[in-house]
């Protein structure tokens, strides 16, 4: 039972993270390969502030603001780039941020990480036990679903898709493509920050090794598997992938295999990503109105 609750918390957090990437990759066509950086900024900001004794609501607000602001600052040089170039630039940014977490020992304790992050307390409720935390994560996921859903269904969302499908045509129709991409990137960054905050307070420990390229690949796979550019896609993808990942635990494998299990699982994720692109790029759920 505890395992199931735990899985639900993980799914809720990954859903938020995936939805935040979906607005960039799925709706706007921004190839963000450094999305994990914003997860990290949210997690570290909130962890450091709450370890310093600030109340959770304040930590959350500052963490979201920090993620959004970093997104804005990164978007100025990075969004001058198209496609592949944007991908490499964001990939580099993600790696740099990990170096910062690792090297600024005075602030982040470096590779040792930050232990003992307190459980959140808000409106007189302390989200300590698993069911309580699940409640918090589920509400956050639902809010993200509703907010990002409203955003993407609005004229703003239509403009994003227009920029994605044909930037030149969108510009001719008077849409400032750069401004739309920037806003999409900032929104995505803020919600990735939210996922980071929830993650840090859930595990009560953050370290640089939580924010590697692997996380980016996992979340990218979730978005692509579920169906990029669709509302339920990231959630469906998160459920499918987390269960796929956890089902491996129930295979009774000999203990000497465990060293191989991690890389093997990651290889399977890579292969799945390639196979999806070659055979079914639209994922499980197809975007309406697209061939």
């Amino acid at each position, binding site marked *: 039972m505890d395992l199931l609750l735990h899985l639900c918390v993980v799914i809720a957090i990954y859903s938020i993270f995936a939805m935040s990437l979906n607005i960039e990759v799925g709706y706007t066509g921004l190839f963000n390969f450094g999305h994990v950086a914003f997860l990290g900024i949210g997690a570290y900001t909130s962890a450091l502030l709450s370890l310093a004794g600030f109340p959770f609501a304040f930590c959350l607000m500052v963490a979201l603001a920090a993620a959004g602001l970093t997104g804005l600052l990164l978007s100025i040089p*990075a969004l001058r780039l198209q496609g592949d170039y944007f991908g490499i630039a964001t990939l580099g940014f993600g790696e740099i941020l990990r170096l910062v977490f690792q090297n600024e020992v005075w602030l982040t304790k470096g590779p040792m990480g930050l232990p003992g992050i307190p459980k959140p307390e808000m409106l007189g409720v302390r989200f300590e036990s698993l069911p309580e935390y699940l409640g918090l994560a589920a509400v956050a996921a639902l809010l993200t679903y509703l907010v990002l859903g409203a955003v993407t269904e609005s004229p703003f969302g239509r403009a994003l898709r227009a920029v994605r499908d044909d930037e030149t045509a969108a510009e001719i129709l008077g849409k400032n493509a750069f401004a739309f991409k920037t806003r999409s990137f900032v929104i995505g960054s803020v919600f990735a920050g939210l996922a980071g905050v929830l993650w840090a307070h859930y595990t009560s420990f953050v370290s640089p090794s939580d924010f590697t390229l*692997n996380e980016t690949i996992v979340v990218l796979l979730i978005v692509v598997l579920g169906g990029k550019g669709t509302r339920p896609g990231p959630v469906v993808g998160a459920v499918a992938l987390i269960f796929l990942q956890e089902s491996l635990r129930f295979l009774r494998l000999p203990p000497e295999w465990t060293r191989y299990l991690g890389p093997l699982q990651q290889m399977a994720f890579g292969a799945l*990503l390639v196979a999806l692109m070659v055979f079914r790029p639209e994922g499980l759920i197809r975007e309406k109105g697209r061939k």
Partner: protein
Amino acid sequence: MDILLQSVVNGILAGCIYALFAMGLTLIYGVLNFVNFAHGELIMWGAYFLYLFVSEPFSLPLWVAVAPALLCTVCLGMAMDFAVFRPLRKADRLTLLIAAMGLSFLLRNAAQFFWGAEVRTYGLEITRGFRFLGLSLTANQILIIGVTVICVIGVYLLFFRTSLGKSMRAVSDNLDLARVVGINARWSIRAAWVVSALLAGTGGILMALDTNLNPEMGVINLVKAFAATLIGGVGNLWGALLGGLLIGLAENLSVLVISPGYKDAVAFAIMVGILLTRPYIVTGKRMD
């Protein structure tokens, strides 16, 4: 003063290797018009193939093992194209990019599966460097410069003195036009993969000889190779050579002023600098 001079020499050495990476990356870009996100994995696997052949059960001497290692790297490059990029020739960019990213992830973890995540070396004896004008140079480092010069001359001869090179340049300029005039584009593309994989594998081996091997070496070097191609102008072989040298120099000189922990961040900083000041380099005609 000695430290400064030594940093310049180290910078040139690192730069030679980055130049090999960047030339391979920019070559595939020129011919197929996409950034091979799995190029870093060709670098890493090149180094690991050599490791495979020098360790049990092959236990070949290092110099002998280089040939089969490079051959395997070329095969890996061809296999990448055959299994992933060729079926996606007509796919949109997002699809292609995600597939390449997945492929890179697959190959990186495959290396980790076979050899573990730990740092390895070829087990060479540490040799004393030659002292020269107050500088210290090891035999490996002289080898790095020598091999780079040979590779650059080889690429020059291939591209500007053979008909295959001419057809590759034609395909790189305009694929459709090249086809219309009867150039066999398929062979040009294959040749591009062979040369790209050879350069990546050679660079990876040289880098592992001078430092060490680990499964993560591909990713970080991809960013450096890319920064180098941006400096030189995307699709431009000689620009990539120059860009690689500049990145190597900048990185090694940066150690004099900032924490060595951020050495890997320098390439990224230069990249952002270029984007902010000279964006037209990367928004030229090839940027569609």
